[in-house]
């Protein structure tokens, strides 16, 4: 005589089998354990390539000088020498193909990132020439008086006078 006690077990086995079949259908083929072992390397391998293909927006800082050597010389001889072009001129993307021109950030907000004075002795910030943004010509854009590529205030004052 057959034993009816095992009937629920058959159903369980059928469900488990169903899950396993779904698994083979649903899980990508390259899902597995890779270099970092099961704990840290259990993943879909092709995802690494997907991340590698992520579009680059900021090109290498040196690339600008190739077409704009005079601008590069200008900024390299100024106190702003260490600032990479794309920080103010915006990300390169595929310039000069797309976009043909870059959108320059001339906002006050960009300059005061460094030049809002903070009285922190012992940090580089404390040593950067700074202003109080709330009292130093609050309505004006900095570029009205200061030329970013050659920002020494004395030079500008002379230029403004002449």
């Amino acid at each position, binding site marked *: 005589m057959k034993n009816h006690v095992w009937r629920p077990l058959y159903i369980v*086995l059928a469900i*488990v*089998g169903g899950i*396993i*079949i779904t*698994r*083979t259908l649903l899980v990508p083929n390259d*899902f*597995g*354990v*890779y*270099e*970092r*072992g*099961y*704990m*840290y*390397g*259990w*993943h*879909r391998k092709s*995802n*690494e390539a997907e*991340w*590698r*293909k*992520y*579009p*680059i*927006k*900021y090109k*290498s*800082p040196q690339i600008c000088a190739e077409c704009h050597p005079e601008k590069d010389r200008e900024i390299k001889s100024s106190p*702003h020498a*260490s*600032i*990479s072009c*794309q*920080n103010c001129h915006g*990300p390169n993307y595929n310039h000069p193909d797309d976009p043909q021109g870059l959108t320059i950030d001339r906002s006050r*907000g960009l300059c*005061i*990132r*460094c030049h*809002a004075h*903070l*009285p*922190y*002795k*012992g*940090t*580089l*910030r404390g040593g*950067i020439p700074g202003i109080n*943004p709330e009292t130093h010509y609050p309505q004006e854009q900095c570029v009205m008086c200061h030329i970013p590529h050659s920002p020494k205030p004395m030079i500008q004052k002379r230029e403004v006078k002449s």
Partner: protein
Amino acid sequence: MMNRREFCKKACIVAGGLIIPLSALEVFNPRRLLAEKDGNSKVRWVFLVDIHKCVGCGLCVKACKIENDVDWDANVTRTWVERYVVTKGGQTLIDSPKGARDGFITQKIDQASQGLKEVKPEEIAKAFFVPKLCNHCENPPCVQVCPVGATYQTQEGVVLVDRTWCIGCGYCVMGCPYGVRYFHPTLHVAEKCTLCYHRLCQGMKSACVDACPFGARRVGNIRDPEDPVTKIITTEQVNVLKEEFGTKPQCFYLGSSMEVK
């Protein structure tokens, strides 16, 4: 003799019996489970932050947000800069308004619901800026706790998220002691710093590294003894964050202080 019914049943049992161990082996392949997690990759990216050099301009945060399409106005960020102001009274005030996306442009310290707090310059004992990003730990707890294998570490030590496989449970977000993870505002999957994996693979540097005018951020290959970053890490006094968690963070700090959280 076997009747048809019994035959079907037995066939099912045999087939099921074969499928189960075979597919179980796929998950529990003992050889693969024991695979050396260290690997022999020639590249292991590490990060170096020089706290002395950081001025809190936040250009790194800006560049990161643009490079990695992190929503500009969303109150989450892959990297951020913290300001520490220690008063002569021994109080430590910390803030990072909008992750320092726009830099630190005021002396007022943002205490969230407690409002802005101003410390008089003569009361400041010390102040400094600390850039933060994913530590790409050697033992990343966020990867350990992912239930589906949607986050993982590459051979080069970079911790990434598979956006097509993440179920959005948030366990990794809770598992990270450094608070670097969050949910992508529109894709609704776990999101984090990739160390600009796409740039590193092209021989470039991370966007935040290129953006920093002061050289406070550097990225290097610890397996290359000639790499300047490696030289600094191996010869100078560097520190890591929250070493007590055993995560072996791979983001090293020069000039760190006990106040740094």
